[in-house]
């Protein structure tokens, strides 16, 4: 199929960006979205033009590196997939595809479609851990945990930190991301011990970094490639006021 791509090009953080238009011919529906961009980049490099810069690594939807805002949706219009697993079979011949970087104040553009997501690391550094040194852990089965809670903790823990929730939210709020980590630890007995300090520290950092406020629109849940649920945000809210 033949496609028209409108891609955001921005030389560096300080530069003014704009959309560039590219024609792509003979795109196979079996390609992934990133493979389609690989093909575009191959063409650009062969013409000695600067290829489109984008973050990507595992290409199987687990590392959280990739992330593009495609036709009005983070990771494109198909639910529950990352950009790297977005198959071109969901697009049709003649489509125009608009590709933009994540837009949020705490995620400044570095180049083209690459944004700086170190804000997420900062939130995790603030409190996203259980304080235990290597060697200090008790026998694993001495900390039993209810299967139901443990399974729910797992469902929260599978966040890949891609930032789609922030990109989707009209307020650029990071609540889903923060709540996923808070939930994982809140639901496990070993995580309860520091629960109060953790939630205070992580929320404080989230606010400091300039993310917007949650207004329960649900866009994050709808766009999360790992289908992290809004119930996590409710749990974060609970955990937060329990901490005072």
């Amino acid at each position, binding site marked *: 199929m033949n496609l028209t791509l409108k891609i955001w090009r921005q030389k560096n953080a300080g530069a003014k960006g704009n959309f560039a238009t590219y024609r792509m011919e003979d795109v196979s529906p079996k390609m992934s979205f990133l493979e389609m961009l690989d093909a575009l980049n191959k063409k650009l490099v062969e013409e000695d033009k600067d290829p489109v810069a984008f973050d990507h690594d595992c*290409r199987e939807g687990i590392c959280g590196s990739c992330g593009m805002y495609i036709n009005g949706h983070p990771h494109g219009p198909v639910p529950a997939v990352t950009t790297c697993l977005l198959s071109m079979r969901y697009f049709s011949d003649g489509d125009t595809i608009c590709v933009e970087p994540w837009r949020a104040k705490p995620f400044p553009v570095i180049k083209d479609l690459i944004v700086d997501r170190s804000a997420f690391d900062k939130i995790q550094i603030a409190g996203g851990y259980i304080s235990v040194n290597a060697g200090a852990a008790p026998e694993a089965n001495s900390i039993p945990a209810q299967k139901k809670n443990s399974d729910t903790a797992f469902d929260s823990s599978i966040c890949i930190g891609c930032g789609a929730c922030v990109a989707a939210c009209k307020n650029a709020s990071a609540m889903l991301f923060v709540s996923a980590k808070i939930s994982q630890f809140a639901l496990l007995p070993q995580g309860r011990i520091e629960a109060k300090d953790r939630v205070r520290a992580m929320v404080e950092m989230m606010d400091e970094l300039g993310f917007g406020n949650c207004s329960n629109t649900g866009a994050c849940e709808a766009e999360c490639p790992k289908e992290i649920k809004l119930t996590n945000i409710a749990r974060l809210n609970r955990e937060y006021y329990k901490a005072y």
Partner: protein
Amino acid sequence: MGKLISKVPEGPLAQKWTRYKSSVKLVNPANKKKVEIIVVGTGLSGASAASSLGELGYSVKNFCYQDSPRRAHSVAAQGGINAAKNYQNDGDSVYRLFYDMIKGGDYRAREANVYRAAEVSNQVIDHFTALGVPFARDYGGTLDTRSFGGVQVSRTFYAKGQTGQQCLLGCYSSLNRQIKKGNVKMFPRREMLDLVVIDGRARGIITRNLITGEIERHGAHAVVLATGGYGTIYYLSTLAVNSNASAAWKAHKKGAFFANPSFVQIHPTSVPQLNEFQSKLTLMSESLRNDGRIWVSKTRGDKRPANDVPEDERDYYLERRYPTFGNLVPRDVASRAAKERCDAGYGVGETGLAVNLDFRDAINKQGKKAIENKYGNLFDMYKTITGIDSYEEPMRIYPAGHYTMGGLWVDYELMTTIPGLYAIGESNFSDHGANRLGASSLMQAAGDGYFVLPNTISNYLADQISVAKIATDKPEFADAEKAAMERISKLMSIKGKQTASSFHKRLGRIMWDYVGMSRNEAGLKKALELIGELKDEFWKDLNIPGNADDLNMELEKAGRVADYFDLAQLLITDALNRKESCGAHFREEYQTPDGEALRNDEEYAYVAAWEYTGEGKPHILHKEELKFEEVEMKVRSYK
């Protein structure tokens, strides 16, 4: 020969590690802060090493090429992590885990290292649990396990099909805690370009800031490489597309021996290639073989849809050839058997390069719900990629490059042949011999980082406390920096026509065709020749647009591919040298009449450690004899 001192402690195998720990030299807590350690890589081994060294009080600098340490490719491991807990009361023990690994590795691993890996496995599970890793649990609240290919006990702890992600996020959390405490300083989006060796000791690294292109010098008392494997040498592999061997290769060129490079594991169950632009092959967890049955048609070139092939016309070739282990044979055996069927013309799908992995019988027996609970996310992922619903028709799978057992040679302390340079996790060679058993890579990587290295590194650092902070204005740093810059300008100035990826793809094709699952002398020599030509073409016709002092992904790729040409040549040299079939290394000349691997313990029971002698010069082979005190070398049979 004299250069390889394994430093394996004396005494009975089961007591070596305990004895070692009790007698190892320590660094006074007050002095630790003054000692700087560089850790390159933030995967399971790198992040665990950086955090536990931070916990001990050392000043750690941790580097990764990704934007965040959480993205290292350990994140993609699916199936599980082994430990000798014996929670199932099924006869498991440290010894049995050790024995399975030695046997699975086809008697080409170092006994003492493997035993230690098995020994610390239980601590690893305890630690991950304490860190809040949500492993699967039973209704009573205790941890659940499952069984994995190549063993007969259930010792694999798991978190659905995302065990690697969960373990890595556990390590990432402990790393974050140390970053907050100021014990670890994190340097993301940095690529290591060279190792700095001063007076024979590793004293620092040269990195490139991938955003600004700036070349940076970092000094330290010791350097730890946790840079993973080189599976992307095949271009298409289950690895992250940016995974590379450049850091290890640079260390090799500075004097670290490279051991058993030809031992590369080809994983039997990955999604087959779908299009020519494909950039990677996605793994489908080995755990699927617990319930899925592998088959092809008994008719050559059968193009019927899988569901139309009647039962009696199906060839369940693994069950036929290996009645005892059936579909659960180790990875190397399963991969080779798939290749054998496809080469013989029985492969399925448009390309004929795939076999069926069928869940029909398991669904009939256990119900769809049970299968969904166990593998739901894998079935979903398969459907996302291929559009095929595996509850209705078989998955198609094909082997893909996956894990490299070979790596930098290390002694018992995980130190390379350069004093002060350590290699941990997949980047070293030590624990998996010629083939790795499923669910043992997470175990080894975390074991190395959390429990082994923090204990062994003090033996070296104890003598280093009097050494002042390593100044980066020494000539060795300037030289290494200059060399790195020169290489960048050399790459930038070729100004040819082709992309780095297109060379990588062609290199991968050669490697897959001649140096993949089965190898022969003529093919290996042919590959050497082809790679030599391709390398020449690369240095004449590569094109990198843009500048070096900017974010330039083409430049990053080019540097990695350039190193892969050299590593490929060494890999083939090693494969040529090893005139036997063992584990993942299958030389067609050395097989039994019924097509099984034929090992040669008399002549090849050694680790082949290769010394770099200079650009274009042949490597020198050093042999570390493998002495087995506890186990008897047997023919590895899964029949």
